[in-house]
Protein backbone atom coordinates (compact mmCIF):
# COMPACT_ATOMS: atom_id res chain seq x y z
CA UNK A 1 0.00 0.00 0.00
CA UNK A 2 2.72 2.45 1.08
CA UNK A 3 4.76 1.44 -1.90
CA UNK A 4 1.87 2.23 -4.25
CA UNK A 5 1.34 5.67 -2.71
CA UNK A 6 5.03 6.58 -3.00
CA UNK A 7 4.94 5.42 -6.62
CA UNK A 8 2.04 7.85 -7.21
CA UNK A 9 3.93 10.73 -5.65
CA UNK A 10 7.00 9.92 -7.75
CA UNK A 11 4.80 10.05 -10.84
CA UNK A 12 3.48 13.47 -9.84
CA UNK A 13 7.00 14.85 -9.50
CA UNK A 14 8.21 13.80 -12.93
CA UNK A 15 8.71 16.52 -15.52
CA UNK A 16 6.62 14.48 -17.95
CA UNK A 17 3.56 14.70 -15.64
CA UNK A 18 4.13 18.39 -14.91
CA UNK A 19 3.91 19.12 -18.62
CA UNK A 20 0.73 17.03 -19.08
CA UNK A 21 -2.77 18.54 -19.35
CA UNK A 22 -4.00 16.59 -16.27
CA UNK A 23 -1.45 18.39 -14.11
CA UNK A 24 -2.62 21.77 -15.44
CA UNK A 25 -6.26 20.83 -14.84
CA UNK A 26 -5.57 19.72 -11.27
CA UNK A 27 -3.64 22.94 -10.63
CA UNK A 28 -6.45 25.09 -12.05
CA UNK A 29 -9.04 23.18 -10.02
CA UNK A 30 -7.09 23.70 -6.81
CA UNK A 31 -6.77 27.41 -7.56
CA UNK A 32 -10.53 27.70 -8.07
CA UNK A 33 -11.23 25.89 -4.77
CA UNK A 34 -8.70 28.07 -2.94
CA UNK A 35 -10.21 31.25 -4.44
CA UNK A 36 -13.73 30.18 -3.40
CA UNK A 37 -12.55 29.42 0.14
CA UNK A 38 -10.81 32.80 0.40
CA UNK A 39 -13.53 34.91 -1.22
CA UNK A 40 -16.63 33.17 0.08
CA UNK A 41 -15.60 31.83 3.45
CA UNK A 42 -12.51 33.58 4.80
CA UNK A 43 -12.67 37.27 3.80
CA UNK A 44 -16.41 37.64 4.74
CA UNK A 45 -15.53 36.37 8.22
CA UNK A 46 -13.28 39.37 8.91
CA UNK A 47 -16.08 41.89 9.69
CA UNK A 48 -17.54 39.43 12.21
CA UNK A 49 -14.45 40.08 14.31
CA UNK A 50 -13.67 43.68 13.42
CA UNK A 51 -17.08 45.37 13.32
CA UNK A 52 -17.47 48.02 15.97
CA UNK A 53 -13.78 48.47 16.69
CA UNK A 54 -14.09 52.13 15.74
CA UNK A 55 -17.56 52.55 17.25
CA UNK A 56 -16.64 52.84 20.91
CA UNK A 57 -18.64 54.80 23.45
CA UNK A 58 -21.60 52.46 23.28
CA UNK A 59 -22.93 50.41 26.24
CA UNK A 60 -21.21 52.16 29.12
CA UNK A 61 -19.62 49.56 31.32
CA UNK A 62 -18.65 51.72 34.25
CA UNK A 63 -21.30 52.98 36.62
CA UNK A 64 -21.66 56.71 36.67
CA UNK A 65 -22.35 58.71 39.79
CA UNK A 66 -26.11 58.79 40.10
CA UNK A 67 -27.57 62.25 40.21
CA UNK A 68 -30.91 63.02 41.77
CA UNK A 69 -32.64 63.29 38.40
CA UNK A 70 -31.25 59.90 37.33
CA UNK A 71 -32.54 58.26 40.50
CA UNK A 72 -35.94 59.71 39.79
CA UNK A 73 -35.76 58.43 36.22
CA UNK A 74 -34.84 54.95 37.44
CA UNK A 75 -37.81 54.92 39.81
CA UNK A 76 -40.15 56.13 37.07
CA UNK A 77 -38.87 53.50 34.63
CA UNK A 78 -39.16 50.73 37.22
CA UNK A 79 -42.76 51.77 37.86
CA UNK A 80 -43.60 51.80 34.18
CA UNK A 81 -42.04 48.31 33.81
CA UNK A 82 -44.26 47.10 36.65
CA UNK A 83 -47.29 48.60 34.92
CA UNK A 84 -46.34 46.95 31.62
CA UNK A 85 -45.80 43.59 33.33
CA UNK A 86 -49.22 43.85 34.92
CA UNK A 87 -50.76 44.74 31.57
CA UNK A 88 -48.96 41.88 29.83
CA UNK A 89 -49.86 39.31 32.50
CA UNK A 90 -53.44 40.53 32.28
CA UNK A 91 -53.54 39.25 28.71
CA UNK A 92 -53.00 35.68 29.89
CA UNK A 93 -56.44 34.23 30.25
CA UNK A 94 -57.39 33.06 33.73
CA UNK A 95 -60.33 31.13 32.31
CA UNK A 96 -60.12 27.71 30.69
CA UNK A 97 -58.66 27.44 27.21
CA UNK A 98 -57.30 24.78 24.88
CA UNK A 99 -53.95 24.80 23.08
CA UNK A 100 -53.37 22.43 20.14
CA UNK A 101 -49.95 21.69 18.64
CA UNK A 102 -50.59 20.46 15.07
CA UNK A 103 -46.97 19.49 14.39
CA UNK A 104 -46.68 17.13 17.34
CA UNK A 105 -50.44 16.38 17.44
CA UNK A 106 -50.76 17.16 21.12
CA UNK A 107 -53.23 19.21 23.14
CA UNK A 108 -53.08 21.07 26.46
CA UNK A 109 -56.11 22.16 28.45
CA UNK A 110 -55.36 25.17 30.69
CA UNK A 111 -57.20 26.60 33.66
CA UNK A 112 -55.78 29.54 35.65
CA UNK A 113 -52.66 29.31 33.47
CA UNK A 114 -51.99 25.73 34.60
CA UNK A 115 -52.25 22.57 32.49
CA UNK A 116 -55.14 20.51 33.81
CA UNK A 117 -55.10 17.90 31.02
CA UNK A 118 -52.79 17.04 28.16
CA UNK A 119 -52.64 14.27 25.63
CA UNK A 120 -52.45 13.28 22.00
CA UNK A 121 -54.85 14.32 19.29
CA UNK A 122 -55.10 14.09 15.51
CA UNK A 123 -55.07 17.10 13.23
CA UNK A 124 -55.10 17.83 9.49
CA UNK A 125 -53.21 15.50 7.16
CA UNK A 126 -52.10 18.24 4.71
CA UNK A 127 -53.48 16.12 1.86
CA UNK A 128 -54.50 18.14 -1.18
CA UNK A 129 -57.27 16.15 -2.86
CA UNK A 130 -57.66 16.96 -6.53
CA UNK A 131 -60.73 15.99 -8.51
CA UNK A 132 -60.28 16.99 -12.12
CA UNK A 133 -59.04 20.47 -12.94
CA UNK A 134 -61.53 22.50 -10.96
CA UNK A 135 -62.17 20.94 -7.58
CA UNK A 136 -59.53 20.86 -4.87
CA UNK A 137 -59.71 20.36 -1.13
CA UNK A 138 -56.90 20.80 1.35
CA UNK A 139 -57.15 18.93 4.63
CA UNK A 140 -55.32 21.13 7.09
CA UNK A 141 -56.19 22.43 10.54
CA UNK A 142 -56.30 26.22 10.58
CA UNK A 143 -53.84 27.98 12.92
CA UNK A 144 -54.46 30.94 15.19
CA UNK A 145 -56.98 31.96 17.81
CA UNK A 146 -60.53 30.55 17.78
CA UNK A 147 -63.53 30.49 20.07
CA UNK A 148 -65.94 27.67 20.80
CA UNK A 149 -69.03 28.51 18.75
CA UNK A 150 -71.24 25.60 19.75
CA UNK A 151 -71.41 22.41 21.78
CA UNK A 152 -73.19 19.28 20.59
CA UNK A 153 -73.90 15.92 22.24
CA UNK A 154 -74.23 12.75 20.12
CA UNK A 155 -73.18 14.59 16.96
CA UNK A 156 -74.10 13.30 13.53
CA UNK A 157 -71.62 13.74 10.72
CA UNK A 158 -73.08 15.32 7.62
CA UNK A 159 -70.64 14.15 4.98
CA UNK A 160 -69.46 16.88 2.64
CA UNK A 161 -68.73 16.31 -1.07
CA UNK A 162 -65.04 15.54 -0.55
CA UNK A 163 -65.88 12.57 1.69
CA UNK A 164 -67.52 10.87 -1.33
CA UNK A 165 -64.84 11.99 -3.78
CA UNK A 166 -62.16 10.59 -1.49
CA UNK A 167 -63.91 7.20 -1.36
CA UNK A 168 -64.41 7.08 -5.12
CA UNK A 169 -68.20 7.32 -4.74
CA UNK A 170 -70.64 9.46 -6.70
CA UNK A 171 -71.70 12.67 -4.92
CA UNK A 172 -75.31 12.34 -3.68
CA UNK A 173 -77.84 15.21 -3.50
CA UNK A 174 -77.42 17.66 -0.60
CA UNK A 175 -79.99 16.17 1.78
CA UNK A 176 -79.58 12.53 0.75
CA UNK A 177 -79.64 10.05 3.63
CA UNK A 178 -76.20 8.65 2.69
CA UNK A 179 -74.72 11.97 3.81
CA UNK A 180 -75.60 11.36 7.47
CA UNK A 181 -73.41 9.11 9.60
CA UNK A 182 -74.17 8.43 13.25
CA UNK A 183 -71.59 7.58 15.92
CA UNK A 184 -68.40 8.37 13.97
CA UNK A 185 -67.72 11.68 15.78
CA UNK A 186 -67.88 10.27 19.32
CA UNK A 187 -70.20 11.43 22.10
CA UNK A 188 -69.49 15.15 21.87
CA UNK A 189 -68.41 17.81 19.40
CA UNK A 190 -67.33 21.42 19.88
CA UNK A 191 -67.58 23.73 16.90
CA UNK A 192 -64.79 26.18 16.01
CA UNK A 193 -66.70 27.67 13.08
CA UNK A 194 -66.32 27.21 9.30
CA UNK A 195 -67.09 23.50 9.67
CA UNK A 196 -64.12 22.71 11.92
CA UNK A 197 -64.92 20.59 14.98
CA UNK A 198 -63.22 19.10 18.00
CA UNK A 199 -64.70 15.62 18.17
CA UNK A 200 -64.06 11.97 19.01
CA UNK A 201 -63.00 9.17 16.69
CA UNK A 202 -63.40 5.50 15.88
CA UNK A 203 -59.77 5.40 14.73
CA UNK A 204 -58.11 5.67 18.15
CA UNK A 205 -54.92 4.01 16.85
CA UNK A 206 -54.27 7.04 14.64
CA UNK A 207 -54.29 9.51 17.55
CA UNK A 208 -50.99 11.40 17.61
CA UNK A 209 -50.82 11.35 13.81
CA UNK A 210 -51.90 13.95 11.25
CA UNK A 211 -54.81 12.10 9.63
CA UNK A 212 -57.90 14.31 9.77
CA UNK A 213 -59.61 16.50 7.20
CA UNK A 214 -58.98 19.59 9.35
CA UNK A 215 -60.95 18.76 12.50
CA UNK A 216 -59.28 17.95 15.81
CA UNK A 217 -59.86 14.40 17.04
CA UNK A 218 -59.49 13.41 20.70
CA UNK A 219 -59.92 10.11 22.52
CA UNK A 220 -63.18 9.55 24.41
CA UNK A 221 -61.94 10.50 27.90
CA UNK A 222 -60.05 13.59 26.75
CA UNK A 223 -63.04 14.69 24.68
CA UNK A 224 -65.35 14.41 27.67
CA UNK A 225 -62.99 16.49 29.85
CA UNK A 226 -62.54 19.12 27.17
CA UNK A 227 -66.29 19.23 26.51
CA UNK A 228 -67.16 19.74 30.18
CA UNK A 229 -64.44 22.34 30.80
CA UNK A 230 -64.87 24.56 27.77
CA UNK A 231 -67.94 26.65 27.32
CA UNK A 232 -69.25 28.59 24.35
CA UNK A 233 -66.86 31.50 23.82
CA UNK A 234 -63.85 29.73 25.36
CA UNK A 235 -60.60 30.29 23.50
CA UNK A 236 -58.82 27.64 21.46
CA UNK A 237 -55.27 28.34 20.27
CA UNK A 238 -54.02 26.21 17.40
CA UNK A 239 -50.40 26.33 16.24
Amino acid sequence: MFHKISEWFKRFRTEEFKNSSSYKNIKAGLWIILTIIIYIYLIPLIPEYTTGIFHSGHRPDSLEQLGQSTEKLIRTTENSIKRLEKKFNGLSSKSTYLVVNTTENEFYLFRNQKVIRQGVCSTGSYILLESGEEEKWIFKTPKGQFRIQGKITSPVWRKPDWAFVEEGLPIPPQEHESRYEHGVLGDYALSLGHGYLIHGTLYQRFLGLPVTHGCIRLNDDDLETVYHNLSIGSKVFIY
Partner: protein
Amino acid sequence: MAFTLLYLFVILAAPVKKINQINSSFNDTITPDKLDKAYPDPDNPDLFNLYKEKIFLESRLEMAKTGMIGIVVNLDDSLLNIEIDGINLHKAYISRYKVSRLFSSIDNKAYLGLLSHPFTTNYNWDTFDKEPIVVKKAPKDTIEAAKQATVPDSVKTGPAYVTMNLDYNIQLCLYQEKGSVWAMLYRFFFMSGRRFRQAGESIRGAVTFKIPEYRPVIKIYVPKDDLVTIYRALATDAKVVVKL
Protein backbone atom coordinates in the same frame (compact mmCIF):
# COMPACT_ATOMS: atom_id res chain seq x y z
CA MET B 1 -4.41 41.62 -5.89
CA ALA B 2 -6.01 45.04 -6.41
CA PHE B 3 -9.39 43.37 -6.74
CA THR B 4 -8.86 41.39 -3.55
CA LEU B 5 -8.04 44.61 -1.70
CA LEU B 6 -11.12 46.29 -3.14
CA TYR B 7 -13.22 43.25 -2.19
CA LEU B 8 -11.80 43.36 1.32
CA PHE B 9 -12.56 47.06 1.51
CA VAL B 10 -16.25 46.73 0.53
CA ILE B 11 -16.66 43.82 2.94
CA LEU B 12 -15.21 45.84 5.80
CA ALA B 13 -17.09 48.97 4.83
CA ALA B 14 -20.50 47.25 4.61
CA PRO B 15 -21.08 46.84 8.38
CA VAL B 16 -19.75 50.34 9.06
CA LYS B 17 -22.25 51.73 6.56
CA LYS B 18 -25.03 49.69 8.18
CA ILE B 19 -24.13 50.93 11.67
CA ASN B 20 -24.20 54.53 10.46
CA GLN B 21 -27.47 53.87 8.66
CA ILE B 22 -29.16 52.47 11.78
CA ASN B 23 -27.69 55.16 14.04
CA SER B 24 -28.81 57.94 11.75
CA SER B 25 -32.30 56.51 11.26
CA PHE B 26 -32.87 56.90 14.99
CA ASN B 27 -30.99 60.18 15.35
CA ASP B 28 -31.74 62.30 12.31
CA THR B 29 -35.47 61.81 11.81
CA ILE B 30 -38.62 62.74 13.71
CA THR B 31 -38.40 59.63 15.92
CA PRO B 32 -35.53 60.83 18.14
CA ASP B 33 -37.78 63.35 19.85
CA LYS B 34 -40.06 60.51 20.84
CA LEU B 35 -37.10 58.33 21.75
CA ASP B 36 -35.56 61.06 23.88
CA LYS B 37 -38.85 61.46 25.67
CA ALA B 38 -39.43 57.73 26.14
CA TYR B 39 -35.84 56.81 26.99
CA PRO B 40 -34.00 59.84 28.39
CA ASP B 41 -30.31 59.42 29.24
CA PRO B 42 -29.89 55.98 27.58
CA ASP B 43 -26.13 56.03 28.17
CA ASN B 44 -26.62 55.53 31.87
CA PRO B 45 -26.00 51.77 32.41
CA ASP B 46 -28.73 51.31 35.03
CA LEU B 47 -31.27 53.12 32.93
CA PHE B 48 -30.19 51.32 29.78
CA ASN B 49 -30.82 47.91 31.35
CA LEU B 50 -34.23 49.04 32.57
CA TYR B 51 -35.05 50.41 29.13
CA LYS B 52 -34.11 47.06 27.60
CA GLU B 53 -36.66 45.40 29.87
CA LYS B 54 -39.24 48.07 29.08
CA ILE B 55 -38.92 47.85 25.28
CA PHE B 56 -39.10 44.06 25.49
CA LEU B 57 -42.48 44.26 27.23
CA GLU B 58 -43.71 47.05 24.94
CA SER B 59 -42.77 45.01 21.85
CA ARG B 60 -44.57 41.91 23.14
CA LEU B 61 -47.66 43.97 23.93
CA GLU B 62 -47.56 45.44 20.42
CA MET B 63 -47.23 41.94 18.96
CA ALA B 64 -50.14 40.71 21.08
CA LYS B 65 -52.38 43.35 19.51
CA THR B 66 -51.89 41.82 16.03
CA GLY B 67 -53.77 38.66 17.10
CA MET B 68 -51.25 36.59 15.12
CA ILE B 69 -48.77 33.97 16.29
CA GLY B 70 -45.43 35.72 16.80
CA ILE B 71 -41.99 34.65 17.89
CA VAL B 72 -40.09 35.93 20.93
CA VAL B 73 -36.29 35.59 20.96
CA ASN B 74 -35.09 36.17 24.52
CA LEU B 75 -31.32 35.71 24.55
CA ASP B 76 -31.07 37.02 28.12
CA ASP B 77 -32.98 33.96 29.37
CA SER B 78 -31.97 31.66 26.45
CA LEU B 79 -35.59 31.14 25.47
CA LEU B 80 -37.39 31.00 22.15
CA ASN B 81 -41.18 31.27 22.46
CA ILE B 82 -44.19 31.61 20.27
CA GLU B 83 -46.99 33.75 21.60
CA ILE B 84 -50.44 34.78 20.55
CA ASP B 85 -52.44 37.43 22.34
CA GLY B 86 -49.82 37.44 25.11
CA ILE B 87 -50.29 33.72 25.75
CA ASN B 88 -47.24 31.50 25.51
CA LEU B 89 -47.94 28.59 23.17
CA HIS B 90 -44.59 26.85 22.92
CA LYS B 91 -41.23 27.29 24.59
CA ALA B 92 -37.80 26.09 23.46
CA TYR B 93 -34.48 26.38 25.24
CA ILE B 94 -31.68 27.96 23.25
CA SER B 95 -28.54 25.85 23.68
CA ARG B 96 -26.19 28.39 22.09
CA TYR B 97 -26.35 31.51 20.01
CA LYS B 98 -24.20 33.93 18.09
CA VAL B 99 -25.02 37.57 17.41
CA SER B 100 -23.32 39.91 14.94
CA ARG B 101 -21.11 42.51 16.57
CA LEU B 102 -23.19 45.19 14.88
CA PHE B 103 -25.77 45.02 17.67
CA SER B 104 -23.18 45.97 20.26
CA SER B 105 -21.74 48.68 18.02
CA ILE B 106 -24.81 50.84 17.39
CA ASP B 107 -25.73 53.77 19.66
CA ASN B 108 -27.75 53.02 22.76
CA LYS B 109 -30.57 55.18 21.49
CA ALA B 110 -30.56 53.42 18.10
CA TYR B 111 -30.44 50.05 19.88
CA LEU B 112 -33.53 50.90 21.93
CA GLY B 113 -35.30 52.33 18.89
CA LEU B 114 -34.47 49.24 16.82
CA LEU B 115 -35.80 46.74 19.36
CA SER B 116 -38.72 48.79 20.68
CA HIS B 117 -41.11 47.41 18.03
CA PRO B 118 -41.55 43.87 16.72
CA PHE B 119 -39.75 43.10 13.47
CA THR B 120 -41.70 41.72 10.53
CA THR B 121 -40.48 38.69 8.63
CA ASN B 122 -40.33 39.43 4.92
CA TYR B 123 -38.60 36.38 3.52
CA ASN B 124 -37.71 32.87 4.66
CA TRP B 125 -35.26 30.21 3.55
CA ASP B 126 -35.76 26.73 4.97
CA THR B 127 -34.70 23.13 4.56
CA PHE B 128 -38.14 21.62 5.19
CA ASP B 129 -41.71 22.32 4.13
CA LYS B 130 -43.62 24.88 6.14
CA GLU B 131 -46.77 23.03 5.07
CA PRO B 132 -45.99 19.39 4.20
CA ILE B 133 -48.67 19.12 1.52
CA VAL B 134 -49.25 15.75 -0.15
CA VAL B 135 -51.14 15.89 -3.47
CA LYS B 136 -53.62 13.06 -3.97
CA LYS B 137 -55.71 12.47 -7.09
CA ALA B 138 -59.35 11.58 -6.48
CA PRO B 139 -59.91 7.84 -7.04
CA LYS B 140 -62.18 6.82 -9.92
CA ASP B 141 -64.01 4.15 -7.90
CA THR B 142 -64.05 2.40 -4.55
CA ILE B 143 -61.45 -0.19 -5.66
CA GLU B 144 -58.94 2.56 -6.50
CA ALA B 145 -59.83 4.32 -3.22
CA ALA B 146 -59.02 1.14 -1.28
CA LYS B 147 -55.66 0.91 -3.05
CA GLN B 148 -54.86 4.52 -2.14
CA ALA B 149 -55.53 3.96 1.56
CA THR B 150 -52.22 3.95 3.38
CA VAL B 151 -51.15 3.87 7.00
CA PRO B 152 -50.49 7.51 7.85
CA ASP B 153 -46.99 8.57 8.64
CA SER B 154 -46.15 11.27 11.14
CA VAL B 155 -44.93 14.54 9.66
CA LYS B 156 -41.22 14.15 10.37
CA THR B 157 -38.56 16.11 8.57
CA GLY B 158 -34.93 15.89 7.55
CA PRO B 159 -32.36 18.37 8.86
CA ALA B 160 -34.02 21.58 10.06
CA TYR B 161 -32.42 24.94 9.30
CA VAL B 162 -34.27 28.20 8.79
CA THR B 163 -33.21 31.75 7.98
CA MET B 164 -35.79 34.51 8.42
CA ASN B 165 -35.09 37.88 6.88
CA LEU B 166 -36.43 40.67 9.11
CA ASP B 167 -36.68 44.45 8.81
CA TYR B 168 -33.33 46.22 8.36
CA ASN B 169 -32.21 43.00 6.64
CA ILE B 170 -31.50 41.38 9.97
CA GLN B 171 -31.28 37.62 9.54
CA LEU B 172 -32.66 35.39 12.24
CA CYS B 173 -31.15 31.93 11.75
CA LEU B 174 -32.78 29.04 13.58
CA TYR B 175 -30.67 25.89 13.49
CA GLN B 176 -31.24 22.45 14.97
CA GLU B 177 -28.76 21.95 17.79
CA LYS B 178 -27.60 18.37 17.24
CA GLY B 179 -27.56 16.02 14.32
CA SER B 180 -25.81 13.41 12.29
CA VAL B 181 -22.83 14.03 10.03
CA TRP B 182 -25.35 14.34 7.20
CA ALA B 183 -27.24 17.07 9.11
CA MET B 184 -23.99 18.96 9.68
CA LEU B 185 -23.07 18.66 6.03
CA TYR B 186 -26.55 19.88 5.16
CA ARG B 187 -26.04 22.90 7.42
CA PHE B 188 -22.76 23.66 5.67
CA PHE B 189 -24.51 23.72 2.28
CA PHE B 190 -27.45 25.70 3.67
CA MET B 191 -25.11 28.31 5.16
CA SER B 192 -23.02 28.32 2.00
CA GLY B 193 -26.07 29.41 0.04
CA ARG B 194 -26.25 32.56 2.18
CA ARG B 195 -22.49 33.09 1.96
CA PHE B 196 -22.51 32.76 -1.83
CA ARG B 197 -25.36 35.28 -2.11
CA GLN B 198 -23.54 37.73 0.16
CA ALA B 199 -20.21 37.19 -1.64
CA GLY B 200 -21.96 37.75 -4.98
CA GLU B 201 -23.26 41.10 -3.72
CA SER B 202 -19.82 42.05 -2.41
CA ILE B 203 -18.11 41.14 -5.69
CA ARG B 204 -20.70 43.20 -7.57
CA GLY B 205 -20.03 46.01 -5.09
CA ALA B 206 -16.28 45.79 -5.64
CA VAL B 207 -16.75 45.90 -9.41
CA THR B 208 -19.21 48.81 -9.34
CA PHE B 209 -17.50 50.65 -6.43
CA LYS B 210 -20.67 50.39 -4.37
CA ILE B 211 -20.75 49.28 -0.75
CA PRO B 212 -23.07 46.25 -0.50
CA GLU B 213 -25.85 45.67 2.00
CA TYR B 214 -24.66 44.11 5.25
CA ARG B 215 -27.00 41.62 6.89
CA PRO B 216 -26.50 41.28 10.64
CA VAL B 217 -27.17 37.80 11.96
CA ILE B 218 -28.78 36.36 15.07
CA LYS B 219 -27.98 32.66 15.00
CA ILE B 220 -29.80 30.39 17.43
CA TYR B 221 -29.52 26.66 18.09
CA VAL B 222 -32.61 24.90 19.47
CA PRO B 223 -33.83 21.26 19.56
CA LYS B 224 -35.01 20.13 16.14
CA ASP B 225 -38.60 19.20 17.12
CA ASP B 226 -39.12 22.59 18.76
CA LEU B 227 -37.69 24.35 15.72
CA VAL B 228 -40.06 22.56 13.33
CA THR B 229 -43.06 23.19 15.61
CA ILE B 230 -42.24 26.89 16.03
CA TYR B 231 -41.48 27.56 12.37
CA ARG B 232 -44.62 25.76 11.14
CA ALA B 233 -46.77 27.77 13.55
CA LEU B 234 -45.68 31.09 12.06
CA ALA B 235 -47.24 32.96 9.18
CA THR B 236 -44.88 34.06 6.40
CA ASP B 237 -45.10 37.67 7.63
CA ALA B 238 -44.82 36.81 11.32
CA LYS B 239 -43.77 39.35 13.93
CA VAL B 240 -40.54 38.82 15.83
CA VAL B 241 -39.64 40.35 19.19
CA VAL B 242 -35.96 40.26 20.12
CA LYS B 243 -34.22 40.78 23.45
CA LEU B 244 -30.44 40.69 23.13
